[in-house]
């Protein structure tokens, strides 16, 4: 690395980190977000307010209801006698209501078909689906208990979950969030700081300095590549130390993946800065790229489940390759094919993006 460039990068880094608030945001924000993802958000649905409605003295139904409340997923939602279950759900005092058959559960079961009714507030479709699945299990278990242990189904599944046996949300979210955070920070910050220089006119000063185009570009972007990598390392360390997310694959693979992503995103940020005329435009342009990139990456929603056209578009999303890579490396220990296929694609994107950014950058300089 030549001396001019080294000094340039150093100056840019100092400038980016000079402000205490900026430092706090650069390194504090990822930790806050990671904590929110790791602690607050869970794909498991809990604390469902359930109200039960039955005739007097329906002991068997009472036992079914107890099965719900002792499962740990449901909370008791009280109601006045004679209240309408629909009304209860409409007012939000209950999320679900279980209603016994009019004749009493035990008696109608003897007659063949003790059919209870479950009303579920489906304003949240995923939650509603979970409530129904819980109810199915609880009622089946309770029925088995009532009619003797009839655990003799002719065909059963023995289910094993690999890589994340407890199905902890943090294991699933943290690697993805890492990609998202690095993307956010690098793209928007790079785009905004370069645009800021343009806006303030300091860019002209740099251009008139005895530096080559490549030196200016590298001097301006390398600091953000370094910052992005530092953030990536910080998030992995925090995930490992705070949430116990394993790093089963070798670290160099992780580093290589992060480098390829950061080079791509910083290049995209640079590209946006050559188009944007002010910082607001740079920020909005960044979001215009980030939102689809995050939604199509598979961090929260499986890509395979999307319409064909979106899947096709997802192949242009660097974050998708990165999320595949990082989950494979961290949770599965790294698979050779997955590693090289995705790293190859990501690397290619990095080269393309960097080339494009350089071309645009040179045009705006001259």
């Amino acid at each position, binding site marked *: 690395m030549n001396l001019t460039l080294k000094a340039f990068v150093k100056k840019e880094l100092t400038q980016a980190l000079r402000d205490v608030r900026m430092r706090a945001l650069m390194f504090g924000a990822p930790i806050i977000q990671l904590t929110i993802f790791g602690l607050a958000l869970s794909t498991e649905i809990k604390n469902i307010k359930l109200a039960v409605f039955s005739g007097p003295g329906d002991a068997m139904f009472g036992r079914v209801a107890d099965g719900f409340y002792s499962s740990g997923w449901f909370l008791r939602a009280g109601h006045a006698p004679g209240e309408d279950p629909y009304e209860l759900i409409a007012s939000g005092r209950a999320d679900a209501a279980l209603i016994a058959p009019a004749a009493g559960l035990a008696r109608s079961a003897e007659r063949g078909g003790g059919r209870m009714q479950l009303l579920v507030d489906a304003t949240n479709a995923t939650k509603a689906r979970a409530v129904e699945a819980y109810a*199915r299990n609880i009622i089946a278990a309770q029925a088995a208990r009532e009619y003797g242990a009839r655990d003799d189904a002719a065909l059963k599944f023995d289910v094993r979950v690999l890589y994340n046996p407890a199905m902890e949300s943090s294991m*699933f979210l943290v690697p993805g969030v890492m990609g998202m955070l690095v993307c956010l920070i690098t793209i928007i910050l790079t785009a905004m700081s370069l645009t800021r220089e343009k806006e303030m006119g300091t860019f002209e000063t740099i251009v008139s300095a005895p530096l080559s185009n490549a030196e200016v570009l590298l001097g301006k972007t390398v600091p953000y590549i370094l910052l992005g990598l530092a953030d990536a390392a910080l998030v992995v360390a925090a995930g490992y130390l705070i949430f116990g997310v394993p790093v089963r694959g070798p670290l160099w693979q992780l580093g290589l993946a992060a480098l390829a992503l950061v080079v791509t995103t910083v290049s995209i940020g640079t590209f946006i800065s050559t188009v944007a005329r002010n910082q607001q435009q740079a920020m909005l342009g960044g979001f215009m790229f980030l939102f689809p990139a995050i939604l199509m990456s598979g961090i929260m929603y499986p890509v395979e489940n999307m319409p064909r056209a979106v899947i096709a578009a997802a192949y242009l999303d660097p974050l998708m390759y990165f999320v595949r890579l990082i989950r494979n490396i961290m949770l599965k220990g790294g698979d050779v094919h997955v590693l090289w296929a995705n790293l190859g694609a990501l690397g290619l994107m990095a080269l393309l993006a960097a080339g494009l950014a350089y071309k645009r950058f040179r045009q705006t300089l001259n």
Partner: protein
Amino acid sequence: MNGYFDFHRAYSIARKEVMHIWRDPFTLALALGLPVMLVTFFGYAIDYEVKDIRLAVSDRDKGPAARRFREIFSASGYFQPVETGPAGPVAMLDSGRASAALFIEPDFSKKIKGGGRVTAQFVLDGSDNSKAAAVMGYLPGIQRAALARLAGAAPREPVSFETRFLYNPELNSRWFTVPGLAAIIIGLLAILLTAMTVAREWENGSMELLLSTPVRPLEIMFGKLAPYGALVLAGVFFVYLVSRLVFGVPFAGSHLLYLAACLLFVTAALSQGLLISVITRQQQIAMQLGMITGLLPSMLLSGFIFPVESMPVFFRYFTMLLPPRWFMAAARGIILKGADLGELAVPFLALAILSAGMLALALKKFKTDLEP
């Protein structure tokens, strides 16, 4: 100087701001383009019902029952059996070429025919929870279908239940996400745009200039914020149109009530944006702070996707301080349930208090910063 608040002066500031936005069509296009993109994505691309899960089948029986068992999986529409490579199904999971694997024992058909009990091993890729949880939910249904078709008789179910999903009977993912998008759009545009625009005035020093004129701070604030409020409401209106016309999301409640909820939340968001700009006075920092305190809570802690009730106790209380949580409750209540003001008293009251609080805080900080 006459009076504390002169509408005409505020209006002139607002007009200048509108011209400013108008002169920058790129920003305008992006600001209105983002809602379009979000609606399209959540409307078309994201479906919570996971389908076509690639299932690696290791069939060591190859008998007729095993074949039918496999068909039950593919007929469900949720699974797509794929050929297992020479390295075996677990290698398929390792490389991500399959998301689940099914192992059929060598004597599966014989046992089924003889009326014996069989256990099929089912292995799931747990590195993607959203998929794994959905697959687990499908298994009981597959088991019932298999029992009925393979073992001959459906198990006698003395006790059963029938589910009725209220407000969204088909569990349509769009009905669930699209009404929540208004919160994201307001959280994104109102907070970030105002934080940055006002921070820019400080950064350029033009705020000082503006303050030395006879225009009062309150008028400046109102004039600067009103156009952005209108822009954000335009975005929300657009989402409303698309969700009604394109996605057929019902609107069960009162439009007036919905507008009131939007206005309250917009006030809170604009005040928050202003507060951020006064504190930071620099666009980059304003943007970062706006993202952490505005966009992130709207997307993650509001109940948009992850229900607030499922969060740990601390977060259930903490989210009470966040306007988006209340707005989300009000918006879904009005749009899907047709709730009236009485039923939404708590969210509305909370929104009103938080909006007033934010506005007061922003005003106070703005004013104290004017003292020389």
